């Protein structure tokens, strides 16, 4: 009896073993595939970034060599940028401050205008609000660079050339539609009864906006603010066209000027590029989760 039972047990174990082995091989193949693909993705993603870091850490003379690894590591280029040591960089901090000012203003204005608009249309349900949302939708789908030439002309006519506010105006105009859509979409998750009960208690629409709407919308506002800030930081064309004087210039315009000269000091350029990239990367990783949520709503649902 007992041998028979043992035999059947062995048999069934064998019967199971075959598919089990197949599963194991498949798992192993999958793991190998994952490792290979991961490695390829990491190389693909990091090569241009590695190139940037490597050159920024090389002494000036070593840039024009065939190294693929810095011969000596030196932070001199970074130091040169931070102390404005190279003649190209003599106004670096001023330009950096311009970039920050521009980014901050675009963020604040986009948040303010976007939230007011979405409050009026989404919460107060103003008649013909769809007209405004269509205008916003239209703005969202017009490529900004296509409007650059007439925009430049108009700013010249207004005497706004070399004024940071001309760029701020353009960027706010292009960032607000997206802000409006994200806020609109997020606002749907907050019951309208919240507003209504506040109104019955005697709050004016202004009070509802400041005391109820803005606090409840905080997560979406963070996403939208980050988006606006990154948009301003990534933008080049309008800054290049509208800001040409040394005092109004921002970092991207100064960086591009490097490029047009005959002997570009690549190590300083790359150090500047890295310093310029640091704030948005930090902000992006800090608010990553909220950004992604906002992006799906705005980028996809419109």
């Amino acid at each position: 009896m007992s041998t028979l039972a043992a035999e059947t047990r062995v048999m069934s174990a064998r019967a199971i073993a075959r598919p089990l082995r197949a599963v194991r091989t498949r798992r192993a193949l999958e793991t190998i595939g994952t490792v290979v693909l991961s490695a390829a993705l990491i190389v693909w993603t990091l090569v241009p970034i590695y190139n940037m870091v490597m050159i920024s850490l090389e002494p000036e003379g070593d840039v024009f060599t065939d190294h693929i690894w810095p011969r000596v590591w030196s932070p001199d280029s970074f130091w040169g940028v931070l102390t404005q040591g190279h003649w190209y960089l003599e106004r670096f901090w001023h330009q950096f401050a311009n970039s920050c000012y521009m980014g901050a203003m675009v963020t604040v204005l986009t948040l303010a205008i976007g939230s007011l608009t979405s409050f009026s249309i989404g919460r107060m349900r103003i008649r013909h609000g769809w007209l405004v949302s269509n205008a916003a939708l239209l703005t969202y789908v017009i490529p900004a660079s296509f409007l650059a030439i007439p925009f430049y002309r108009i700013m010249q006519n207004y005497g706004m050339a070399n004024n940071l506010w001309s760029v701020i105006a353009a960027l706010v105009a292009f960032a607000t539609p997206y802000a409006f859509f994200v806020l609109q979409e997020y606002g749907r998750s907050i019951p309208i009864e919240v507003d209504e009960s506040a109104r019955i208690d005697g709050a004016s629409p202004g009070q509802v906006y400041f005391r109820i709407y803005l606090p409840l919308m905080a997560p979406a506002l963070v996403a939208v603010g980050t988006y606006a800030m990154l948009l301003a930081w990534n933008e080049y064309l309008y800054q290049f066209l509208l800001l040409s004087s040394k005092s109004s210039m921002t970092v991207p315009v100064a960086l591009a000027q490097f490029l047009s000269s005959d002997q570009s000091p690549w190590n300083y350029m790359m150090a500047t590029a890295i310093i310029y990239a640091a704030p948005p990367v930090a902000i992006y990783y800090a608010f990553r989760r909220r950004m992604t949520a906002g992006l799906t709503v705005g980028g996809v649902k419109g």
Partner: protein
Amino acid sequence: MASASAVDVGRLPLRQRSLARSLRGDLKGGEYTWALAFLVPYVAVFVAFVAYPVVYGLWMGSEASLYRELFADPIYQSSAVNTVLYLALGVNVKMFLALLLSGFFMRPGWWMKALLLIFVLPWAVPQISTFISIHWMLNGEWGFLNNVLWKLFHIEGPHWLNERWMALGAVIVSHIWKWTPFWTLILLAGRMAIPLEIRDTARVDGATGVRGFVYITFPLLANLYLICTLLSTIFLLGDFNAVTFVSGGGPANTTHVLATLGIRDAFEIAHPRLGVAAVMSALPLVIPLVIVLMRRLRTAEVQL
């Protein structure tokens, strides 16, 4: 009229009252003023900085003779070809990669999360920084890419940016490098939104692997994929930075696209109207795209 109280409004003749109602909707007088005041900033920004430039641009590019001059320009002709190639390859390769990679990133485990963090880096780093780096990386003499080719394989790499098709290829690849992470994130979120029950039921019914993708995942993602493709087409059409910094429109102005050619015509050869005309020549493509997109985006609560 604005100061009329609710009682007065009630006494107005019928036609006027319905006019007032049709303007104000259900909002009472004071509320309507608030709502209107809240709209004023955006409307002002839109009129001054979007509508006015649009009208101004249409006016600048309204002469027929401009287009004769434009179409006869060989640089314009090559730019138009480049734009079509840039759109066709840039958008489709990128979106297809994003579709596949979003499936890859659905795999469980800490490693996938960590990899995703690295993978989104190109998108988080400002364009100008990375495109300048790519520009120098592709330098024929001292660029990183050719150095690697030489050190590892003893191959003399070509001068990547000195030949039209390679330079254009470099621009397209740079665009794909920069923007694939963004669309991967979007499609990943789309996949996450597919209810677990659907996936589980499908798996029980035998729809796994490729079949699961073809019969379950893709039909559910199709609408999202289409909207993303259209949006990305529009964004790419307006892209200025990749071409400017990677190839600079060179060699000999052979890798311009319409967006960069417009700026070149307007500011380098100081003929702004021709620049506007170059951009406006994309309108036959832009207008249908905008109409389709506006319809889709307005109605789409993405159907999942």
